[in-house]
């Protein structure tokens, strides 16, 4: 079920809120957990009933493994073995559904084999819930989770606002909230917060992201068909995609945060104005924050992080980012995108290291003109890297990124001034305007008498978004593919 669908917004959500309210107020507050679990399973089954069984089996298996690891009777070597077993199980399932055809195709190419493995329908949200389960097992192993509760655990893995595309949450940040029965006493500020986030997120998705998608589509489709785009088309297409994926994914996250808030639950922030970043390091602290956190805590640091010298650090960065790229999709273009970002991060760390060592470089980096230059450089690098993320093939990615570097190149796909101005407006939006968290924070700080007017304004924005949503025929969120 899509967040941007009539069924979800006007049937599933009101019914779930009503049932939660009845259970919390009139029955037993802990019953709400059961209500939310049932709603979450219905939510998942609606989109992917075929894989509901797989989802349930993985859920129970991981809990059993978690219990075994947490048991005081289990010795350290056994704990390690169980953790390895759990990680292998989860990654094996992920590999089977998401990477098997990719793996077979590459083995065939490399060794001239004749494997014939067809692509399967990938279970919805698998990349997200697998990571969440791995994080759970590792946290239990590291002793970060002291107490396990099956009901809390099931709700943690299935809670519908974050089930399909995050934010990737940790058991440790959800259990204390569930224990407090937040739904029995939802604060007015949470309701305003929830509605505001949902309204902003929906607008970002249906009014902005879905409109930018057309411009990117024109350019990348032409490139995939063998046509080299012109310099301006390549830039408009790539920046349009950069805006589309930002508004799409951050819009999804805003809705997820807003939905959780309606039940009194706080989900972590996932985006913090990433296109305002003045370095790639800063970009990754602002973009898909919960994925960056996962990759850092469960991959980069276990690989040795920056504790084993400069060379190892850069190697670890490259490995982490390449695997992060592969996590997005079973294609070499995603790996290339990850490697590109790994390289940029390594260069960024190297630059910082050199600045710390050489005074003239430090002075240069502290010059007032360096700030806008650093922003521009970061923005250009990030936008160029999107070519690999968006392109359906390596050849298309090379065509688009090549055109971005050659002023007099290619043929025009008829993206003109109108498209340029729309995309430029989007850039101004993401660079100058406050992000969703800042907007909601300001709304919550308003005097009480101003709130009805804000509610009226948000109602109008929501209504317009609803019409956009219908006109666009409920386009899926990009991250549903991953």
């Amino acid at each position, binding site marked *: 079920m899509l967040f941007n669908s*009539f*069924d979800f917004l*006007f*049937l599933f959500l009101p019914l779930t809120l009503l049932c939660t309210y009845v259970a919390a*107020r009139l029955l037993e507050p802990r019953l709400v957990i059961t209500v939310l679990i049932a709603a979450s399973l219905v939510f998942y089954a609606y989109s992917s009933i075929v894989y509901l069984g797989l989802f349930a089996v993985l859920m129970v298996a991981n809990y059993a493994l978690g219990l075994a690891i947490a048991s005081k009777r289990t010795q350290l070597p056994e704990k390690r073995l169980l953790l390895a077993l759990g990680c292998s199980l989860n990654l094996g399932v992920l590999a089977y559904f998401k990477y098997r055809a990719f793996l077979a195709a590459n083995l065939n190419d490399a060794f001239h084999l004749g494997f014939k493995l067809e692509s399967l329908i990938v279970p919805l949200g698998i990349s997200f819930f697998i990571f969440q389960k791995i994080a759970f097992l590792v946290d239990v192993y590291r002793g970060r989770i002291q107490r396990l509760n099956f009901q809390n655990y099931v709700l943690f893995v299935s809670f519908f606002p974050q089930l399909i595309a995050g934010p990737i949450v940790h058991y440790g940040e959800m259990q204390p909230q569930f224990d407090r029965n937040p739904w029995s*006493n*939802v*604060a*007015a*500020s*949470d*309701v*305003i917060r929830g*509605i505001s986030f949902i309204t902003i997120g929906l607008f970002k998705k249906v009014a902005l992201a879905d409109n930018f998608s057309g411009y990117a589509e024109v350019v990348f489709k032409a490139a995939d068909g063998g046509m080299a785009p012109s310099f301006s088309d390549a830039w408009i297409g790539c920046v349009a995609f950069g805006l589309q994926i930002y508004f799409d994914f951050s819009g999804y996250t805003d809705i997820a945060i807003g939905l959780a808030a309606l039940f009194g639950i706080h989900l972590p922030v996932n985006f913090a104005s990433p296109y305002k970043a003045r370095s790639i390091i800063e970009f990754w602290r602002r973009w898909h924050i919960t994925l960056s956190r996962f990759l850092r805590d469960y991959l980069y640091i276990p690989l040795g992080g920056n504790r084993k010298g400069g060379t190892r650090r850069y190697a670890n960065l490259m490995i982490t980012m390449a695997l992060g790229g592969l996590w997005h999709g079973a294609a070499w273009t995603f790996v290339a995108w990850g490697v590109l970002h790994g390289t940029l991060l390594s260069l960024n760390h190297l630059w910082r290291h050199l600045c710390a060592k050489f005074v003239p470089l430090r002075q240069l980096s502290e010059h007032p003109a360096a700030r806008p230059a650093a922003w521009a450089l970061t923005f250009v690098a990030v936008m160029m890297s999107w070519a690999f993320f968006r392109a359906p093939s390596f050849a298309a990615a090379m065509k688009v990124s090549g055109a971005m570097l050659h002023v007099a190149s290619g043929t025009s796909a008829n993206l003109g001034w109108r498209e340029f101005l729309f995309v430029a407006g989007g850039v101004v939006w993401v660079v100058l305007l406050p992000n969703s968290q800042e907007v909601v924070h300001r709304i*919550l700080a308003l*005097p*009480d*008498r*101003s*709130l*009805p007017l*804000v*509610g*009226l304004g*948000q*109602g*109008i924005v*929501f*209504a317009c978004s*609803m*019409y*956009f949503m*219908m*006109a*666009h*025929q*409920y386009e899926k969120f990009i991250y549903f593919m991953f």
Partner: protein
Amino acid sequence: MRNSFTSCSRGAAGFVGLFLAVVSAALAFGEWELRQSVYSDDEVGVVASRIGAVYERRVWPVLGDSRLGNALVGDSQLYLAFRPDYPGFLHLGLSGESTPMLEILVKEYFKFRAPGRVIVEAGPQLFSQRRLDFGTLGYDRYFKQNNWVQHALGIWSYMAEPGVSNNIGPLLQHKAARYQPEWMTAALAPATAAEAPTPEHWGLYPLEERLSYARQRVAVQRPVDAFEQTSHFAAYRRTIEFLAEKKATLCVLRTPLTEEYLQLIRDDPHYLQAYAAIQALAKVNGARYVDSQMLPITYSPENFDNQDHLNARGGALFAPVAEKACFS
């Protein structure tokens, strides 16, 4: 502001109240607008009217009558042979349909209706590559409200029906244009190049052109190799079986084609096999097979719009005779 929701401040209550009021008003307005416009073909697309015909029993300007359970299942060849003003039938097809789409539509249309007289088009072009590429044309996403509960309660929402509600944008633009000053309408109107007038009927084209056009159309509409193995032929077969099971008075009808077109397909094995397969299907399911060439009508080029479509004059000549042949 950390007070509980049940004892929230007046400002917070005003926020939620006004938000919900505006959203409810927008929902009600959208539903009202769609209900008005779904009936009118100039405001929303024919897909919306066709979905409306599944839910509502009335006479539709572009599709005909959805009250009786008589239906015409095919593409533009059948649609133009029985014009929408031909009484007593509802057109489930209009132009360029695919058989998977028709299957969905037929099954949904007759879910809560008893079929009466149903004519299914015997059209080899339904199994051409172009049609195979169409798939379900998005119809598998529609009709979720066409269920027992909502049917019994008589409650459905066009706002919740994707094939209808996607017209909300053009519809509101259309409404807004009525209140737009003339200078703005002129400024916003897309520039259109003057087109050469199309001849009024097929007979006005020179013979060479007619042959050339017919050749092109025959090539595009030729059924694919092994068309009987395709999912589209399976959908066509299931549609006929479904109608037969529902006890429809069923007729499979081959619609008229121009002489040029007929000449070109006369010895074409793809076309011949398709007609034979369709005829066999009709026989197995107890449907009458009517071939327009066997009817006592003499067609002239003046009866056609183009290679394979009757014009209004030709339709008026053909439809009553065909209906009689089908059901008498």
